């Protein structure tokens, strides 16, 4: 244990594509899922995270390390989160929101949800369907009727940038 050796406890996390990552326990327990495993004593060996791929997990660990290095200053934490998410594309954000949900990390979940919303804000209905993989199950008449009811919300929509 850390108390005996004087060095921080390190956990090994395994992604669903079998990549291994070392991370300080103090940073990793930002995830309630991981914290519960540690408290239950299942963290001795490798912690398998079946729902997160290596690329996303690497990113989440960067976040864990970055945010836990900031002292209790909500303004600074917020600006770290903003900067961390600023260069992420939509697909990465979507992977991260799933990972944050699975790892039960509320601060990351809230920040990524807000970021995705910010990206979506002025997008078209078609863009949302494509990006979220949603099938349009309206008949053309039904869709036109819903659109007609909320006509003004279609003002100022950006031109799609994904095709």
């Amino acid at each position, binding site marked *: 244990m850390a108390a005996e050796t004087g060095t921080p406890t390190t956990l090994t996390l395994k992604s669903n594509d079998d990549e291994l990552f070392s991370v300080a326990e103090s940073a990793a327990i930002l995830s*309630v*899922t991981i914290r*519960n495993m540690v408290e239950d004593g299942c963290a001795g060996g490798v912690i398998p995270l*079946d*729902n997160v791929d290596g690329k996303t997990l690497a990113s989440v660990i960067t976040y864990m390390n970055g945010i836990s290095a900031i002292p209790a200053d*909500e303004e600074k934490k917020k600006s770290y989160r903003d900067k961390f998410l600023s260069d992420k594309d*939509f*697909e990465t954000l*979507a*992977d991260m*929101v*799933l990972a944050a*949900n*699975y790892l*039960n990390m509320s601060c990351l*979940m809230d920040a990524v*949800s*807000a970021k*995705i*919303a*910010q990206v*979506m*804000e*002025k997008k078209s*209905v078609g863009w*949302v*369907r494509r*990006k*979220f*993989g*949603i*099938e*349009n*199950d*309206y008949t053309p008449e*039904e*869709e036109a009727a*819903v*659109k007609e009811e*909320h006509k*003004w*919300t*279609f003002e100022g*929509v950006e031109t799609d940038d994904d095709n």
Partner: protein
Amino acid sequence: RRRRRRRRAMAEKRLTSNLPEEIMEEILYNLPIKSVLRFKCVSKSWLSTISSKTFIKDHLKRSIAEDEEKPGLKVLTNRKILFNYVKPAARLSYSIGSFSLCKNPKITPTLYDIPIQNVGFMHIIGSCNGLILIMIEGKLVLWNPSTRIYRVIPSPSFNEAIFLHDGPFHVRYGFGYDESNDDYKVICIKDTNYFPEPYHYETRMYSSKTNSWKKFDNCEKHLHGTHDGILVNGRLHWLVQYNRSTGSRDIVSLDLAEEKYQTFSHGVEYSSGVVSLVELGGYLGLMNLMSGADVNVWVMKEYGVTESWTKVWTLSNFIDQLPRKCVGDIGKLKPLCWSKNGDISIAFGQYVVVCNGKNVLRKSRVGSVFEHRIQPIVYVESLVSA
């Protein structure tokens, strides 16, 4: 210990497709109302999620709670100040705009197209859960400015002829929500005459569920002034005329769910000047403007407890810090928000001033086109419709 069950493994397909509904809702909560409404067109399941009572309720709850968790007024993003103003181009036409309490010295408001064209008096009666009740051209309109959905309420009928557009001189209104019945209610209290009985009223209550008015008990008190009911804690409040012979200083409240009046003492000693009830950060408050430009604000920190009335704000010594233009509007000030850290924002004429009890922290001018003072009211953007 609270444990979160491990989620069902995601399918092998691209992760971005079909985000679980709870995550999707999380994202939708963060979007502006305009975008949320547009995305009803995405699919039938998005339409049903966004239109559901649960989603609308949770969306509202989160908007309010988020603001309450935040430390200062400058980050109150969901709560906005709604105000009416005279359109500069058409001097007799009123309209409505809104702005957030932000740090910027010049606030750029959002302006709305009001649902009914008007050429005269418009008055904002109350705001509740994102709905506002306004009086335009003698019509009562229940309107959600964020979704632009509105409903014209039928006029109440009284025994005597009543001229609604006589406005606040003869009629007091109150607007609020009865959560137990999911019903938005409007109260209309009309003075039937001034002499010889100064406080003979006729009262009617409107329910959004039935879209109709019913006769309602009068309160047995002589109400002070003609202000509209102040909504706190699911109850509407009116100030009772100070009784010199008994020395009682009372407030009458109307519980919108129980539909019962109650009278309680506020016990606040003010010497002279104008006194009015206010809502501040969810508390019931009392504001007293004295002739010497001294302003005091008290709030009832624990609802219903007379001893909990506390003075939270005094204006006397910082009048010099105010923008010079404000000083003339000293009689027209209105406290808007009281945040957890003690900051209070006050509307003075065309300005919103934020102060921390001792000093003015910042002052922001609302737009630049408004010649007349704004009559602000706090409101939260929501998807609620009545």
